[in-house]
């Protein structure tokens, strides 16, 4: 069981990680109203009133989905650091160091294994705060590990995508994560296990051109920016203004690229329902469909094992 490193105690961890002062007021990017940070946090980072969906960190996301806010953190493969010895205005290794200090994460993708309404599930969560959720070798390996684990555990895999795209500082090796993660998706598909992608704000670039658009089911959060090419690049290419709502979740729904746009408050229930339906698991509040027969033996209901 070497993939289990520790049982996460999310509350302790989030206290250690939090840098935002408790008393901070934040401004809703949509309506401009000022709201108390704590109110937003306790509302799953949805602004009360405007319903604007703020970005959500990987740990907060896992807390919001897994039963009892508890899961196993999955150990992720080590990768070669800075294969290109890259520097732009700053050295890539320094950028990585800063991102680690800022987020408490090792890289942009975190993988957890736990239960969702009693059934095992693998969650792969991208954290935009870590270098824009960019897809490099570490993130690629993490996604592959998550999908492989789902095959091992015979469980569905849910990916929460949040990324600006490929990690340019890793050059071609970041581009190679497109086919590499695609191979892992194929393995899950061949194992006939459900693969659900939740597209959150923003999911763009190379990430959309691979695992994020290969789900059995695509769910988008309201207002999320989802697209391949950046708006600026498109405007410069075609020299015209982009239509209202371009590349937003609702626009993708209209164009048949996502199955549904789901409010964050309804996400957990929707995911649980989909997982149950696609794995042909019985309904949770199943009516007593079978007439009670005299039971000769006491029935033992297996307790969910970790």
């Amino acid at each position, binding site marked *: 069981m070497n993939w289990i490193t520790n049982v996460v105690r999310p509350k302790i961890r989030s206290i250690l990680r939090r840098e935002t002062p408790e008393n901070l007021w934040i401004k809703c990017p949509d309506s401009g109203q000022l709201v108390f940070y704590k109110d937003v946090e306790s509302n799953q980072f949805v602004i009360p009133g405007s319903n604007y969906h703020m970005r959500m960190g990987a740990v907060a996301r896992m807390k919001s989905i897994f039963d009892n806010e508890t899961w196993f953190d999955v150990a992720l493969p080590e990768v070669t650091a800075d294969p290109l010895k890259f520097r732009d205005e700053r050295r890539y290794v320094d950028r990585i160091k800063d991102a680690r200090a800022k987020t408490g994460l090792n890289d942009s993708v975190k993988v957890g294994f736990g239960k969702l309404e009693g059934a095992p599930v693998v969650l792969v969560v991208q954290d935009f705060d870590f270098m824009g959720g960019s897809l490099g070798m570490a993130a690629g390996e993490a996604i592959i590990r998550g999908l492989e684990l789902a095959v091992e555990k015979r469980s569905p895999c849910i990916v929460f995508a949040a990324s600006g795209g490929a990690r340019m500082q890793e050059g071609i090796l970041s*581009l190679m994560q*497109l*086919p*590499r993660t695609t191979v892992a998706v194929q393995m899950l598909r061949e194992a006939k296990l459900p693969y659900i992608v939740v597209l959150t704000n923003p999911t763009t670039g190379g990430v959309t*051109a*691979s695992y994020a*658009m290969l789900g059995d089911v695509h769910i988008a959060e309201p207002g999320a920016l989802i697209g*391949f090419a950046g708006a600026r*690049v498109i405007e410069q290419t075609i020299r015209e203004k982009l239509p209202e709502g371009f590349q937003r979740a609702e626009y993708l729904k209209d164009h048949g690229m996502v199955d549904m746009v789901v409010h964050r408050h309804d996400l957990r229930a929707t995911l649980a329902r989909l997982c149950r339906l696609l794995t042909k698991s019985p309904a949770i509040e199943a009516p007593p469909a079978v007439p009670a027969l005299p039971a000769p033996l006491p029935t033992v209901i297996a307790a969910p094992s970790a």
Partner: protein
Amino acid sequence: MRSYLDFEKPVAELDAKIDELRTLEAGGSDIGEEIARLEDKSRQALDELYANLTPWQKTQVARHPQRPHCMDYIAALITEFTPLAGDRKFGDDEALVGGFGRFRGDSVCVIGQEKGATTESRLRHNFGMARPEGYRKAVRLMEMAERFGIPVLSLVDTAGAYPGIGAEERGQAEAIARSTDACLQLGVANVAVIIGEGGSGGAIAIATANRVLMLEHAIYSVISPEAASSILWRDAAKAQEAATSMKITAQDLLRFGVIDSILKEPAGGAHRDPAAMIATTGDAIAKAFDEMRDLDGKTLRDQRRQKFLNIGRKLG
């Protein structure tokens, strides 16, 4: 009409001098020896330049308008080429061409990006920047090839997938992802050749092959040097630096295990002798397909997947 890239100036000057002397020679002067000497010098200068091209210079060579393009390779290497059109969903995209023909006698499926050679054909082929329809056509052809047990050849030459409103509306990202998916799923042998520019997702969509070959001065990159410079350096003028930092040359990519072999270009680059370049490429493609001739579908698929999973895992 010969054209020279900016860094080829010394060669251009020598060639101009040779032309001048030729005119004189035609007028009766006996300067054959001098011409031969200068021609030798010009050849040497060109060899030296091309032996030490910087990544930015390679970018210029890879984009040279006279460099042989996809259709040139098809015309020379594929007999009975029968282009097929349309994705059966929305339209046809001539930025990504494809069809069936014979390569050295055997049936083959060919797909590739065509940049076009004249203003008219460049527009028709959208400068080699495919829309979703192009990638969906590629998927359709690959699936057909698989069904009939026909190997697939990809000729990669694109600045990237087309960034436009319609392309986004019709699912550019999904189309690319599905095309990569189809490549990796193939139960027949496939070979990809990066003949010019391998531009990001638009390139990888058809480049995940059992064997990936790359021309000596081609480039293959996650983002164009120009875009990288404006994003990472916030300065569009840093493209040369970006080209170097991002390691986009065939030599770098061979070292990273991203490509399998490099195809040597003629002196002064593929555009100076397209026929020789295409012949070299043809031989390399034949060799690659021959090596896989006896492998069954499952083995080919497993090997291809493992090859991509291994990329980056054994970096020195």
